[in-house]
């Protein structure tokens, strides 16, 4: 195991000597993943890149799992729990398709350049765009099964090589018989069903575990993750979201949301307008002027807020691969698979917790609601202080008068430190929806940081939240 990975694991998994078994399981798992052979072919190289990503994400996940395994349970239950935990970790290690989900955690970490060693960043950055490809013969057969004909019979032209990777498949360019250029996202066969079955198995393994109340909350978060993964395998849901988001930006020339074509789409094949443009890295190499960087940072911030406050959709995957930059100031949006539609209860919670702070009592109630604890249950002052610190950090840009400097690494770094500090202290109890809100928030801040953007976040927040019918 590399010294850097070892350091990372040691730093994260500090705990009492009595909790040796889960720590051993974590080390064992990381060691197994680290011992993959040196890649010699393209297929092996892809797997190892994904494994590096998986190692890091599994480290965090296993730490969260382990931290829920705590304190005051009897010896018999402890032994039982160890068995379940080991089984859960083992199952995670076999869920290689989850590299897509773990990629998303890694993508989040990638955008915080000061957090991880540079070599991890370079490896993780590649994961935005790479995945083992389907060759055309497999794809042709699959599309034939899904759409009733070979793709070369359906479309005027169809490129046999994918031009982009998706987390569960890949994307091809084609031209309709009408002349329109389209992008066709095609899922790898059987992934959806495998994810559903593995999710069920995972919850079956975790369900009997008896821990503190915090563990019940963690299990709900894992359940939430599994459910989201399953949702991502349904392109019909993504298509519906694409249409809803498109309506949010109708008439706004700056934002391009691709149209989707239902006659050429199914649950596992999604056909939509092909958008050109440059991804963030490519855009930044053109050395764009500061004004354009500020403009895009502001636009990305506004898009996220409009989707949330008007559309009640959390764009939980705001990584560089999902935006296409044009030098004329237009921004294309891609990939609405990893979004979270807020339920009525979650929206109500969001308004309560993230709205204007009221009395101290109201504030404490809102905090407890965000941690999913009853009003009567005591919460340590340190924990409350930590959450309040985070809320202060979160509100800072929208309370700042004038242009807030998102390019200031101290701001982003402070936010990330608060989150990792919270994880280290075991403050992992949270409503599952907070994970998605956090990903959206950090993703947007990280993009704005990369752009070195400065803009009036307060004005955008006030405009977009006041336009919301129910906020």
């Amino acid at each position, binding site marked *: 195991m590399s010294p850097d990975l070892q350091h990372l694991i040691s730093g994260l998994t500090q705990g009492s000597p009595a909790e040796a078994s889960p720590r051993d399981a974590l080390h064992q798992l990381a060691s197994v993943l680290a011992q993959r052979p040196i890649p010699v072919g393209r*297929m092996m190289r892809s797997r190892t890149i994904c494994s590096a990503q998986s190692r890091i994400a599994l480290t965090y996940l296993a730490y969260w799992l382990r931290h829920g395994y705590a304190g005051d349970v009897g010896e018999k239950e402890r032994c039982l729990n160890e068995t379940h935990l080991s089984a859960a970790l083992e199952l995670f290690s076999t869920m290689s398709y989850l590299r897509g989900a773990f990629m998303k955690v890694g993508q989040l970490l990638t955008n915080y350049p000061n957090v991880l060693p540079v070599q991890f960043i370079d490896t993780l950055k590649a994961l935005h765009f790479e995945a083992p490809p389907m060759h055309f013969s497999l794809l042709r057969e699959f599309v034939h099964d899904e759409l009733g004909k070979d793709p070369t019979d359906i479309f005027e032209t169809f490129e046999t090589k994918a031009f982009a990777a998706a987390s569960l498949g890949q994307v091809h360019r084609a031209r309709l018989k009408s002349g329109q250029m389209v992008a066709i996202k095609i899922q790898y066969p*059987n992934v959806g069903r495998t994810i559903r079955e593995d999710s069920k198995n995972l919850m079956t393994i975790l369900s009997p575990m008896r821990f503190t109340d915090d563990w019940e909350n963690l299990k709900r978060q894992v359940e939430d993750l599994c459910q989201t993964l399953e949702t991502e395998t349904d392109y019909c849901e993504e298509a519906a979201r694409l249409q809803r988001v498109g309506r949010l930006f109708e008439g706004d020339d700056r934002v391009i949301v691709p149209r989707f074509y239902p006659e050429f789409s199914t649950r596992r094949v999604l056909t939509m307008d092909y958008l050109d443009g440059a991804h963030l890295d490519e855009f930044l190499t053109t050395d764009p002027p500061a004004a354009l960087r500020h403009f895009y940072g502001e636009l990305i911030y506004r898009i996220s807020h409009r989707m949330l406050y008007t559309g009640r959709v959390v764009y939980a995957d705001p990584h560089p691969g999902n935006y296409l930059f044009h030098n004329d100031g237009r921004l294309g949006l891609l990939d609405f698979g990893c979004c979270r539609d807020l339920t009525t209860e979650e929206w109500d919670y969001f308004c309560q917790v993230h709205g204007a702070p009221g009395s101290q009592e109201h504030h404490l109630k809102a905090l407890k609601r965000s941690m999913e604890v009853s009003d009567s249950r005591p919460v340590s002052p340190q924990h409350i202080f930590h959450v309040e610190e985070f809320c202060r950090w979160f509100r800072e840009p929208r309370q700042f008068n004038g242009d807030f400097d998102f390019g200031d690494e101290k701001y982003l770094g402070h936010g990330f430190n608060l989150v990792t500090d919270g994880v280290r202290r075991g403050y992992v109890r949270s409503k599952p929806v907070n994970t998605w809100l956090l990903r959206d928030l950090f993703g947007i801040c990280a993009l704005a940081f990369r752009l070195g953007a400065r803009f009036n976040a307060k004005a955008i927040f006030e405009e977009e939240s006041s336009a919301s019918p129910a906020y």
Partner: protein
Amino acid sequence: MRITAQAKVEARERIVVSALRLFASNGFSRTTTREIAEAAGVASGTIFNYFPTKESLAMAVIGGALEDGERNFLRRRRGDEELAEDLFAHVLEGLRKLKPHRRYAGEVLEKAMSPFTSPELTDDGGRVRSAHLKTVSQVLAWHGISPTVVVFVSHLYWTLYLGVLAFWVNDSSKKQEDTLVVLDQSMRLFAAALAEDE
């Protein structure tokens, strides 16, 4: 009365078509040669003038489907495929043609193509095997695999292919999608192993 060559060809054709229909609807074991003869409009014993056994008749049908698959594969090749894709496409074209016979193919293939089958039943299976491996050797040669390696890996490949066939026969997933995955992964691993060896 002497039967013309043309009449023989037509009779054989009727027997094959009738067998195909009855195997598909009733299964291989439940279909008798008497029923096939009756459906084809020939005397019971006439079938054995053309096919020594019921299995041989079934293999003629299946063998014909696989030959169609071979021809389709060669016709549809683009020329820019990598080895794993070529191997995948070759098997897949055979499975596509074999699909109408999936219900009874397992029973027949087990008798005719199993390595443990007795010699008098392997002629038909032997022909199918030879034709398939001939195409595989051609594919390997296109991708620069040396002839000596081809001779060795053909045995290995045949075992892999039979495994995929067996999986497909028993695949209850919708449109046998699981077989696509198994076939894809199998051929990738096989091709990768060859690439490392070269």
